[in-house]
Each structure stands twice: as C-alpha cells, then as structure tokens.
C-alpha cells in the first residue's frame, strides 16, 4: 500500500512538472563584476540589463525571463566559478556576460565545453576572446578594446600635436588590447611610444610609478579603470603632476568621472575614445539616456549611462529579439536561435552593430574629450564619430594576424605594418 502511494505520488509529480514545462521560464545567467575593484562597473552593467528587461516587460517570445545573477570580481577564475554555477547548477539556457577582459577569455574557453548553452558577451573587451580560436556559441555585440581606440591615435597626433607618448596600464588582456589599438593608429600616424609601464590590476599606490613617469614626453596614455584609475588621479594630483593626458576607454567613462572627490578634475580636457560619447545628439542615444535617467533615482545611477550599461543593454536586446524571431524555440539545440543571433543587426543607442564571421561586433566608435556640462558634471564631449570599425581596424586580416596577440610589447611602434 505504502509503495503504491509512493509511486502514485511520483507519477503525479512527473505529470505536474511536464505541465509546468509548457510555460517554463526562460533562464538567463547574468555575469558581472559585482565584487572588488570593478564593482561600480558591474552595477552599471546590471542597470543596462534591467532597462532591457523593463522594455521587454520581462517576456521574450511569450516566455517569462528569469535572470540568475552570478557575481565575479574581474579575475578569470571568479568568472569561471560564476559561469559554472549558472550553467551546471541553475541549468540556464543563455549566459549574458562577463564584464572584464580576462574573464571574457576564460568564459569563451568554458563555452567550448558547453555546446548546449549560448553565451553572449556582456562588455568584456579583450581581442583574443573572439579573434584567437573563437567558440562557436560565444557572441559579442560590443567592439573589443582595440576597436574602442579607433580614431584616437591620429587625433592626438594630428590635432593635439603629441609626438611622443608614454603609456601606463593595468597588466591584463583588456588593457593590452587597448594599448594595441591606440599604438597601431598612433604609430602609423607617425607618433613614438617611448615607454610602456604595466602595473598589476588592483594597484592602490601609484606614487612611485608616478615619480618614474618620464618628463620628456608630450603626453601620457592612461590605461586604467575603476578604483585604480581614481587612485592614480588622486596621487597624481598630490604629486603635482601636470603632463598632458590621453585616456583609455574606461579611464574617462562615467565610472571614474562621477567618483566622489576632486581627483577626477585632473581629467578635464583629456582626449579619449570609446563606443559612446555622452553628448552625442543622435535621437536613439538621447532616448536611451532618458530611459536610463528615468529608470533609476539620481543617487542610484550615474548622471549619464556608462559603457557597461550600454553594453549589457545591447547584449540583452540582441538575445531577446533573436528569441522573438525564432518564437522562443530552443529545442533544436539553439540552432535556429544562433542563426538569428548571427543575423542580428542592432539599431543600438551607440550606433548600428552587426557581427562578423567570428561573431564579433562591427560598430561605431567615438573620439571624445572630457568637459564640464551645464550642471557641473564631467562628461565625454563628442569630437568625432568613426563608423564601421571592424576587429582588424581596416588592416588586411593576414597582416593583422602577423602583428600578434596584444601583449606588453605587442605591437611594436612602427610607421607601417606589413
């Protein structure tokens, strides 16, 4: 008798779960740096995700979306831990993330072992992620760190007249990629990079490095982000530094420009480049800024969205609209869904985005300069729009490959690459 009740219960449970299956929620894993030195960046990424969810009313192709958040701390092993948790334990269908460069490489490698899951990058920007042995199920709707530098090298050489530059950057893949992109264009324009300083990610005391910076260069390129950037600026101010500065993408975005304190003032007038410009008058961009400002109270957001919010917003939008195209059908091992993703052309707030053969974004880049807006906030003022930037930055792919993977001394500073 007991046995009978037990098996009946099991049958009923099985029946119930299959009923539940029809209206099953769509599980999406969300990876972002919500711990450590890049916490603010991850928080803004999550804001972008929330805006997208709000616009889609939490539904894609009639299925309710359930987001499972997995925090990381910008280290590759934390990203792998987080992504394994959402994939193997929570059994998500789609992963959106991660945020930081080396995390992206680690997640790409992990993606190869999980062909049943589709991965869409959050905003991580190391070149290797999609350029060297890419994973078939990993999509990136943001440009990489080198593409984000498009336009800057020739601008600072020709317009600003900086003939020699020293660089300082955090010692990891994303900043390698950024310096790579800057150097490629700057050196071809005729500039010289005299020295490259690399500091560990998470360096808090830059005083000695600031003292070691050369005085006989026209400008110093800063490839830092998050807390490191703020610390550098603070100590640079205290040391009385007055060199011309050039900013990497995350050096001059809202995460640093809206930090508390006066160190950020040093950045006024600094030229930089990245996938967005705060003052762009494009209606799509203005609409997104408005949506961002309306969605969160002023103390819970930046005055204007940082590139992480935009990146995650775009990634989520791409996923939802591809799901809509295939009517939420993932039953064929994501095959149709992935084709739809690949064909996606996003009319994103920061310009049109399409994917290349490596599932890597081709998009629009912006050269900017830091300025004060009428409310006294520091913003990135638009200088120049560079459309259709692809991963090889307009260089022939065969030659581009020969330059090598971005690294501490790659690329060499040359007038021409061939």
């Amino acid at each position: 008798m007991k046995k009978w009740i037990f098996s009946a219960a099991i049958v009923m449970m099985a029946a119930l779960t299959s009923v539940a299956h029809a209206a099953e929620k769509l599980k999406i894993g969300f990876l972002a740096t919500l711990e450590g030195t890049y916490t603010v960046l991850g928080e803004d990424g999550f804001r972008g995700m929330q805006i997208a969810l709000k616009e889609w009313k939490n539904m894609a192709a009639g299925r309710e979306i359930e987001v499972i958040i997995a925090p990381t701390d910008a280290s590759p092993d934390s990203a792998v831990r987080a992504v394994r948790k959402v994939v193997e334990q929570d059994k998500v269908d789609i992963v959106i993330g991660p945020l930081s460069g080396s995390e992206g490489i680690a997640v790409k490698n992990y993606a190869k072992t999980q062909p049943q899951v589709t991965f869409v990058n959050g905003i991580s920007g190391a070149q290797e992620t999609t350029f060297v042995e890419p994973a078939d199920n990993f999509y990136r709707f943001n440009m990489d760190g080198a593409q984000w530098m498009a336009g800057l090298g020739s601008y600072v050489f020709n317009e600003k007249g900086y003939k020699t530059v020293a660089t300082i950057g955090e010692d990891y893949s994303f900043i390698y990629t950024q310096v790579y992109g800057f150097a490629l264009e700057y050196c071809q324009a005729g500039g010289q990079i005299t020295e490259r300083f690399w500091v560990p990610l998470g360096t808090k005391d830059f005083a000695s490095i600031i003292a070691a910076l050369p005085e006989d260069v026209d400008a110093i390129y800063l490839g830092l982000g998050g807390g490191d950037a703020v610390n550098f600026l603070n100590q640079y101010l205290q040391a009385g530094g007055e060199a011309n500065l050039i900013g990497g993408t995350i050096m001059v975005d809202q995460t640093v420009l809206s930090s508390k304190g006066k160190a950020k003032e040093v950045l006024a007038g600094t030229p930089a480049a990245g996938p967005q410009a705060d003052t762009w008058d494009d209606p799509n961009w203005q609409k997104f800024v408005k949506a961002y400002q309306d969605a969160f109270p002023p103390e819970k957001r930046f005055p204007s969205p940082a590139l992480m919010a935009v990146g995650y917003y775009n990634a989520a939008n791409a996923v939802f609209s591809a799901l809509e195209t295939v009517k939420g059908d993932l039953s064929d091992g994501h095959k149709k869904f992935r084709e739809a993703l690949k064909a996606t052309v996003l009319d994103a707030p920061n310009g049109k985005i399409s994917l290349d053969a490596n599932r890597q974004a081709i998009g629009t880049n912006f050269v900017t300069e830091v300025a004060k807006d009428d409310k006294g906030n520091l913003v990135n003022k638009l200088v120049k729009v560079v459309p259709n930037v692809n991963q090889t930055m307009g260089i022939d792919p065969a030659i581009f490959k020969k330059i090598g993977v971005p690294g501490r001394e790659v690329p060499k500073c040359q007038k021409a690459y061939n």
Partner: protein
Amino acid sequence: MSRFIERHPAWTFVFFVLAILLLLLVFAVWPPGLVAVMGKKKIFLNALLNGITLGALYFLVASGFTLIFGLMRNVNLAHGSLYLLGGYVGYAAVELTGVWFLGFVAAFIIVAIIGVVLQVVVFRRMEGEDLRQTLVTIGISIVLADLMLWYWGGDFYQILTPDWLSGPVVTPIISVLKRSTGDPIYIKYPTVRLVILAASIVIGVGMWLLLNKTRIGMLIRAGVDDRDMLAANGVNVQLIFVVVFAFGAGLAGVAGVVGGTFQSLAPGEDIRYLLASLVVVIVGGMGSIPGAALGAVIIGLAEQFGSVYMPTYSVVGTFLIMVLVLAFRPQGLLSMR
C-alpha cells in the same frame, strides 16, 4: 643598544656601513654610473619615501590588529571591515563639517564604539574558543561589507584634503644638477604623505609610551604575558579587554581615513587591508607593536620598490618575504615568543 654593540660588533659594523650608504644614496648627487645601473635618483628616492609612508598606513591598521591579538589571542578577521567603515565615517564627517581633522575624530570614536559592542556582545561569549571566534569574525566581516555596500554603494570615495595639504612640497634633497647651469633641482614630494608619516610616528611613539610608561600599559603588558595571573591579582581583565579592543578598532578607523585620503575607499578594500595587516603581523611577529612597525615598513618598501624596479612581480615580492620569514623565523622578526 649598547649591549647589542658589545655582543655583535661585526653586525653593528655592517649596519653602520649600510646606514652610511643609505644616507649617501639619499643626499649625494648620483654619479652617471649609478644612474645607469639604478635609474634616476628621483625614482629611487620616491620609492623609498613612498614605501615608508605606505608602511606608516599599514602600521596604523596592523598595530590595532596585533594589539588585540597579543592581549586577547583573538584573531579579529573583521579588522579590515573596521578600516573601511572608519574611512566611510570619516568621509561623511569631512563632507558634513568641511574639516579634515574631524574625520579622524569621528572615525576613531564611532569605530571604537563598534569595537566595544563587538567585544562585549560577541567575543566575551566565546573567550578562548579560537575556531569559533575566527568563523564568527569572518561572518561579521561579510555582513559589514554588504551593509556598507548597501549604504554607500560601490562608488569610489576620496576624502578631500584641505588646500594646504594638496599638491607637492619641495624637499631639501637634491635630485640632479641641471645640465646647462649646474643649478640643483630639488625633489618634490606630496605634502599629505609627509603629514601622514609624521602622524603615524607620533601615534607609534605614543603607543610605545602608553604601553611602557603608564599604569594601564603595565596592565596590558601583564595581560599579554599571563592573563589568568593578572585576573587573580584582582584586576578587572574584562575592562582592559574592552579598552584595548576599542583602541585597536579606533586605530583601524583612523587608518581608514588616512587610506581614504591618499588612496580611495571602495568595496573590497576591507579584504585588502585585512590581508595586508595579516602579512605585516606575520612578518613582524604576532602581538608585538615594534614588530608591526618593522613589518609594515618592510612590506611597504617591498611593494613600492617592487612596483618601480620589477612591476610585474611586485605582488610576489611581498609574499616572498612572508614565506622567507615563515621558513626561517616562524614566530616573526621581533616576536618575544
């Protein structure tokens, strides 16, 4: 000192020569040969001064940690959270009043009060139970970190310095002679760091005087040596525990304001400073104030020289020192036990 000279004449000579060499390196104008080997004098000198000032900050954090450990055998793994909390409290106070100095007062008082609460409510209940204390303090540090993230968010905070402290000061140390005229160019150095260094030395000396020249210091030292015997003598040991815990916590709070002034405050700093003070205390010797000072300066110097002369491996340097100390003098450089 004189006993040391009598007992180790050879070592004394070596130290003497090293000290003269260091003074020469600091004050003399470097010949071109030396510049070729070691880089510019400016870089060396900045690394030296920065290492010492960073050491001063580490000392402030680690001295409270080591004091609490020395007396109560209590490894307080929430010490880093007290540091970060002190920084935030100091920031709020400076924003409110506009007076930099008040940041230190507010941080010391409020974090000291939290220290008292921790000691009375939590640690008194689990005296002598090392494992429980360790686990509970880890728990408290996680809870505090999340509470701070909730209240202050993930932004980066810097505590504003008064105008007379921002910017550099010209030191009387010559960097190089101008090639054209032969005029000396002097080293510029951030004022705020020099002030912090001076303040740390004052606090360090003050603590040494308190421990060695006052009655309460005598009681604390007696407690460190033999707690039970002190209690048997009719001294209220629990009260001393509370006072020491409050003081140690308060120092962590003050260090938070210092850190927020020349670095920045953000989530994650708590763990970083907990780790730094653990390394400092392991190198210097658990429970010893002079040990904390020595360990802090060694670690600070290692970090700064590492960051200039071998940037990629600067993190390794710190831990290499810890490994060497643990291998050859596991009780720490200046530990009595």
